[in-house]
């Protein structure tokens, strides 16, 4: 079958000889992918920043598909169902899943206890091949996958597998109160969605910080927010202090993660020398920009083992740090309601629709930010929908 094939940092190809996935467990399903997205966190893999990313892996944790085959223990899904598949592989029975922490499942990733199981996210994420392929194996098929509601656009559905819930949970973890000033670092798809969702919680002011002008313009229009380019400032922290009456933001959201720009020290030590787990520039700025006693919500992805940030300021300011991988299944009912009611417009984020055969171009365009790319969607051959 056709599948994305990782060959090394900045090198991938569309491989036509990938073996078809097989049922390996009674709770497995095999899904024929109908739509698949490239996530900003896939770029961390693409850039070689995530340990245990092995040559030959297929990435992709945001996808929809039609159930082609089910294991003997699958009861809720049947062949032919069109499902959206949350990026978490979750068993539904471990203590974490029982408490709706589906991003922290204890029975889906043997390789790292700090990380849950994720589709197509290196062996650090459990070693699963992902959905940037024609077919994919979906473990625990009765737990997370959900039949796409009647009337929902497939492009909205595929964005509900990660981007929308992650943006929403970023705002939710911020504990936003009506009138709060919320600063979002990063105008990628998740940052843009977090800014949009901050309003749902009653934010009084939403500010997005990034350095790519076309993305800032997109954020202004899509998320109804203010958006500023940190390259036009001497010091973004000082700028934000001035913008917030010298007080600091009530809530800061880090939607950037380990691939941040903006600090030579962080870039050299984190991305060039790999002495820390990527560049933590946005997290450092967020700690310093939030008010005393404020809340810092982190959804940006950082690799192990550690990063250089100002823990002293975190303690001295009494900041509450809230962070987790998104618990997609927990949030889906509410978010489906928001989408169906028109309060959220996920598919508005998709800027490029690209055949799976051109996956290497899609990664490059997204990574190098060509052609005003916000979010590329991959369409496999034979992805016909009845």
């Amino acid at each position, binding site marked *: 079958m056709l599948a994305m094939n990782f*060959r*090394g940092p*900045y*090198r991938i*190809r569309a491989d036509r000889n990938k073996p078809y996935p097989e049922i*390996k*467990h*009674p*709770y497995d399903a095999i899904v024929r992918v109908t739509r698949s997205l490239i996530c900003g966190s896939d770029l961390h893999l693409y850039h*070689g920043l995530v*340990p245990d990313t*092995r*040559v*030959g*892996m297929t990435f992709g944790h945001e996808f929809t598909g039609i159930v082609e085959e089910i294991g003997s223990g699958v009861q809720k899904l049947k062949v032919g169902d069109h499902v959206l598949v949350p990026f978490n592989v979750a*068993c539904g*029975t471990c*203590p*974490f899943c*029982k*408490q*709706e*922490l589906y991003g922290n499942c204890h*029975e*889906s990733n*043997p*390789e*790292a*206890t700090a990380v849950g*199981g994720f589709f197509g996210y290196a*062996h650090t*994420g459990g*070693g*699963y*091949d992902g959905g940037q392929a024609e077919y994919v194996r979906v*473990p625990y098929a009765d737990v997370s996958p959900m039949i796409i509601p009647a009337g929902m656009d497939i492009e909205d559905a595929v964005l509900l597998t990660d981007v929308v819930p992650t943006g929403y949970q970023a705002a939710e*973890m911020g504990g*936003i*109160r*009506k009138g709060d000033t919320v600063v979002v670092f990063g105008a990628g798809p998740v940052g843009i969605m977090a800014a949009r969702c901050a*309003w*749902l*919680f*009653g934010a009084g002011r*939403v500010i997005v910080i990034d350095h790519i002008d076309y993305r800032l313009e997109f954020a202004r229009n899509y998320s*109804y927010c203010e958006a500023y380019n940190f390259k036009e400032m001497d010091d973004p922290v000082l700028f934000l202090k*001035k913008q917030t009456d*010298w007080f600091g933001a009530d809530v800061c959201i880090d939607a950037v993660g380990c691939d941040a720009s903006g600090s030579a020290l962080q870039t050299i030590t984190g991305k060039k020398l*790999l002495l820390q787990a990527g560049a933590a520039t946005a997290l450092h700025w967020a700690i310093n920009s939030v008010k005393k006693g404020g809340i810092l919500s982190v959804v940006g992805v950082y690799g*192990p*083992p550690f990063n250089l940030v100002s823990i002293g300021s975190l303690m001295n300011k009494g900041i509450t740090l809230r962070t*987790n991988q998104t618990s997609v299944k927990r949030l889906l009912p509410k978010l489906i309601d928001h989408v169906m009611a028109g*309060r*959220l417009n996920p598919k508005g984020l998709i800027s490029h629709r690209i055949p799976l055969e051109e996956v*290497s*171009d899609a990664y*490059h*365009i997204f990574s*190098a930010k060509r*052609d005003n790319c916000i979010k590329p969607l991959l369409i496999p051959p034979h992805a016909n929908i009845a």
Partner: protein
Amino acid sequence: MENNAEPNKVYSIDRSMANTSKAHIPGWGIDADPENDPTYPMKHWNGADHERLNYEKPPQQPIDMEVLHSVERPGITSVFGTSTPPSGLSGMIRRYAFKYSEATATHWMTLILADRVNVIEGYIDDLKNGHVPNPFMERGWHGEWKYNRKGFVQTVAIGAAVTASVILLLNLKNKKKVKPVA
């Protein structure tokens, strides 16, 4: 002490959004929840943590391949990915890495080393299978040609000039080393 600073006058850059109506924003405030304090809603506490590892586990996926597992857990999880089992020199390095806990740099940095070795193994495997890697395709340069042609041409021209200069310098050095025959 009197504070003569005039922060609002000097620094109120754009506060228009803060004071305007939010009527144009779909769903403004619909999910506002005054009880959303830092312990809610990340976890619905029900005491399951105290079960520790004594919970009802799903059936075990047959372990018919080598699966490395963190030393911070007693064994392999009920399901696991079968994408790319460890193999070759990179596999040996990965096995070494998995002797150390996730708290150690040795574990993660060794895995990064294995990843880089694995890239070389990937080249060798490609050639063994009669596939010559195509950097133009694999690096997505078709997209660069399509959307940033000027930059692409510039990069290629600079690369060609640097390569030509290096070759020229090496040739000059080699010529100087050759002693004239008396």
